[in-house]
């Protein structure tokens, strides 16, 4: 049986800074190498999307201007369908600006409250200091703890409510807000965090986890993800994790 997954790429023209398309490249490579077809459907402002046909969604970071241009389309046009799909375990990865926009709101310097989609129980407050640098987060996706590595560059400070689980604990770097060592948030199959790098290429455990979640949701829980070597991926991860942890 040909396994096929459909991925909605949210606003690729507006939300595409910091190499976040590397995440799509990684998903495509690790699907293709297992003979899983990955269809990528770009979602631009004004597009109509049948969210029930989607297995995955990716939402990257953007410049402030890009974010402002898509926010209302996200909430008004895609809002109802995307919310329902997330409640029905759509597999979502949201980075940086995309992460913020899935939360309740973004509170600007001037006290203006910019609404988000509100599917993640997080909110973001504009910060004065930009949090820039390499970041290591310890995560456990059910197969034992490991260290996820990336690069963060944000001034928004994101705080969690009780409706989300942290993706991991920050070992090196600032994390969501620079205060509570929380790095990223999980709700059902939706994952949000500030990690660029790009995130997925160097963290194949997470890439495979997302693919597996999507396959099981589409084709049933008996589906096993075919094993696939990840030597180059894990080398890139190990080199950075070791370098960063040794400097602590």
């Amino acid at each position, binding site marked *: 049986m040909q396994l096929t997954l459909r991925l909605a790429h949210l606003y*690729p*023209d*507006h939300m*595409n*800074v*910091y*190499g*976040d*398309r*590397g995440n799509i*490249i*990684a998903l495509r*490579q690790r699907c293709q190498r297992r003979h899983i077809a990955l269809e990528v459907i770009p979602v631009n402002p004004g597009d109509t999307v049948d969210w029930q046909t989607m297995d995955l969604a990716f939402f990257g970071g953007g*410049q*402030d*201007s*890009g974010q402002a*241009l898509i926010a209302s389309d996200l909430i008004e046009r895609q809002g109802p369908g995307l919310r329902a799909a997330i409640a029905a375990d759509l597999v979502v990865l949201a980075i940086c600006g995309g992460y913020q926009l899935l939360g309740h709101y973004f509170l600007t310097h001037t006290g203006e409250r910019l609404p988000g989609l509100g599917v993640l129980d997080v909110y973001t407050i504009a910060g004065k200091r930009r949090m*820039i*640098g*390499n970041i290591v987060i310890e995560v456990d996706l059910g197969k034992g703890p490991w260290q996820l590595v990336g*690069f963060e*560059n944000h001034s928004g400070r994101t705080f969690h409510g009780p409706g989300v689980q942290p993706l991991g604990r920050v070992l090196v770097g600032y994390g969501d807000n620079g205060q509570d060592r929380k790095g990223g948030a999980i709700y059902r199959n939706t994952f949000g965090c500030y990690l*660029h*790098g*790009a995130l997925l*290429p*160097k963290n194949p455990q997470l890439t495979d986890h997302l693919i597996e979640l999507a396959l099981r949701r589409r084709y049933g829980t008996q589906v096993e993800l075919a094993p696939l070597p990840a030597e*180059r*991926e894990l*080398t*890139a991860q190990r*080199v*950075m994790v070791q370098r960063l942890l040794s400097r602590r």
Partner: protein
Amino acid sequence: MSRLRTTTALTLARTAGILSRRLGFGGGTSLPGQLARAIDPAILTNFCHALPAGVILIAGTNGKTTTSRMLAAILEQAGVSLLHNRAGANLLPGLTTVAINNADWRGLPRASCALFETDEAALPQAIAETHPRLVVLLNLFRDQLDRYGEIDTIARHWRQALQQLPATSTVVFNADDPAIADIVHQLPVRTVAFGLADERHAVGAATHIADSQFCHTCGHRYQYQRIFYAHIGHYVCPQCGHRRPDPVIALTVLEPRGLEGSDLQIDHPNGQIRFHVPLPGLYNAQNALAATAAALALGIDTSTICIALSQIQAAFGRIERISAGSHGPTMLIALIKNPVGASETVRMFTTATTRPLHLLIAINDRFADGTDVSWLWDADFEPLAQRVAHVTVSGTRAADMALRLDYAGVATEAITVIDDLPTALDTALAALPPGETLAILPTYTAMLELRSEITRRGWARPFWEA
């Protein structure tokens, strides 16, 4: 008092520069200026004020070093006594160092004109301190977002600074970059637009690294009739009608001649000029166009321009040709530092020849490179799939780059990772069949390391003399 301060600043700064070179700390291209500025903050302004033919600034994400070098060659050909930050130190201390090195004991210039390539973040301050008569704006692409921030922010700062220019100044700008055209729109100075008109070099559709696809006036998506790369092309806003300004200086014919260079034809208000520029790629053709536009705006005659540009040599690491020893193979060094530049370099190598490529790619993540290597994922390395005979990957982020190539479709057995750069260079040269060229793609600090290694081996001169 002010003269004493200037003299003290000069003496100390020059001594520091000499010491820096003697002690082997490198070229001393920034430290003297930094010292002098601490003692006499007005030193650069006073110096520039005394230049009879004034100051020219060149800024843009990509191409500023090569374009400055081209314009410098033209000005020198025209007999202008020129000073120029050709070693590439393009922050204010670097500019000040060049001024100091060309000043007499009173701090007054020993040249008539200054040409400074200027870092994107430093341009507003450079405009404020040097009061340029001519500013050349090339392009704005995403580059080291960890250092510079968003390009929207840079564009805003540029526009604010340019609004302070005296009305007698000229701004020569790239009409094909909507971010640049927007910065220049309705500035109260003389503006001269240049642009690409040879539509054979357009590609199909907007690429994923297009940063400025949306109209700055109304936010609607630009419609492109032609796109050359990234967001460079012929655009119009279907909503408000804001469109690419018509260039008065246009590149009408670009005939590529492999890795040897290109034949160019440039149209200008008084006719047409044709010459061969011995640097390959669309990028360098565009740099030659920008230099030509700037020279014409300065009133330099076309024959001088043709002579200078047809003899131009590559700037340090900008598709620079170096032999590995007296009978050794040729190395072509092409700096890569941001996604658009890297993509265009890959495009140049994959289109200039049909032979399998031999590469050395060295990626560092030190401060001057940008500590974030995310940009590797925005750059298009995919054209290298099926085209690489062998690639050696080196630098502090060799593992990231090897993975990038693997995911771009380069055969995994063609990739060798060697962290140490001198060893990587040996490996790459050893793997090179006779008669083939080694293409070397380093980031900025990797290029400096490489340069010192090949200088140590006696294959090239130090960079501050190059």
